[in-house]
């Protein structure tokens, strides 16, 4: 058994860095998304939309890198003490989280294209319009984008609650394995 798959082993530094970077970006992107729609039409509003889109594209790119990395560096195994249903639930929740990290930016991009607004990543790289301008379709993608974001919010809450439960109730290493700094002593 390699170090990466040993029970109780930590995630690799790359996986930990990507996890927290993406976490920070989705919290920022989500908050910005909620705030920007409330702004009156102004230069600031256009700027916030641009930043929101850049964050989304960045999340998409980092998530692709993260999945590729994960494929070559499997995460630590679950503790054999963990009940079967929890392992299964964790498996599905993580799969869904990854799917949303990829699909949410795509629905945003589709929404923008269907609205007739190009996405220019970081103000430098014009991305192709995925669709021609179509107002009805833009409305559909808007609903998808918003709905999936609230699905993500619910999943992230579950994810955080589960991590805290593992750490404080079960006293296992699930949270510390992903924590940026290794614990100075074993969690138990």
């Amino acid at each position, binding site marked *: 058994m390699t170090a990466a798959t040993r029970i109780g082993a930590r995630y690799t530094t790359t996986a930990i860095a990507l996890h927290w970077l993406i976490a920070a970006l989705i919290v920022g992107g989500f908050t910005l998304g909620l705030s920007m729609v409330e702004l009156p*039409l*102004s*230069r600031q509003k*256009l*700027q916030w939309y*641009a930043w929101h889109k850049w964050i989304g594209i960045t999340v998409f790119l980092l998530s692709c890198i993260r999945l590729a990395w994960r494929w070559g560096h499997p995460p630590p195994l679950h503790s054999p003490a963990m009940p079967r249903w929890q392992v299964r639930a964790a498996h599905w929740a993580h799969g869904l989280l990854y799917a949303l990290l990829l699909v949410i930016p795509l629905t945003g991009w589709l929404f923008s294209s269907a*609205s*007739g*607004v*190009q*996405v*220019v990543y970081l*103000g430098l790289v*014009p991305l192709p319009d995925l669709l021609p*301008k179509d*107002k009805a379709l*833009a409305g559909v993608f808007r609903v998808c984008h918003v709905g999936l974001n609230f699905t993500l919010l619910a999943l992230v809450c579950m994810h955080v609650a589960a991590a805290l439960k593992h750490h404080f109730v079960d006293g296992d290493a699930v949270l510390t394995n992903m924590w940026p700094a290794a614990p100075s002593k074993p969690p138990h």
Partner: protein
Amino acid sequence: MVLLRSFIPPLGMLLLAAGQAGAQGVLIDRSEIRFMSKQMGVNVEGRFRRWKANIVFLPKDLAASKADFEIDLGSIDLASDEAETEIKRPLWFDTVKYPTAKFVSSAVRNTGMDKYEVAGALTIKGVTRDAVVPIAMKKDAAGNSVAEGSFALKRLDFKVGEGEWADPDTVANEVVVRVRMVLPPVR
């Protein structure tokens, strides 16, 4: 001769040059007036849902040819309802005072093969400026003439986007207007 066909859209959408030799009408649901502007470096596309056109295109009699347009500015299709509301306000189109934009052609000339230039006067928000629209003509499978052209205008020439919106770094001064007109054959 005015050619009325079943596709002719509801009243008011099509201005026919009644009684005028060679007036063709326009296949309005296959024709479009779109525009592209840049907001903070990002292309933003829009179009007008309602407009009227009076087009006479006679390749052998360009002196009698013309292309006049009247565009309902309130029918603008932009990225969001919010943007559509904003652009009708006094700082932009001021559609209460200036509900339409007009283009009245003064000359049509051939610039080689199927290329033409339509010169005319463009009026937006009470300001009139000369404009020249290069056009490429082609035939579609049904024998209709398809005229495609685009030209750039400067929105600030027409006082479109004043005050806080005058800054061209936010909304570029240049707006590219793209016109595609499908004209049924003259019989």
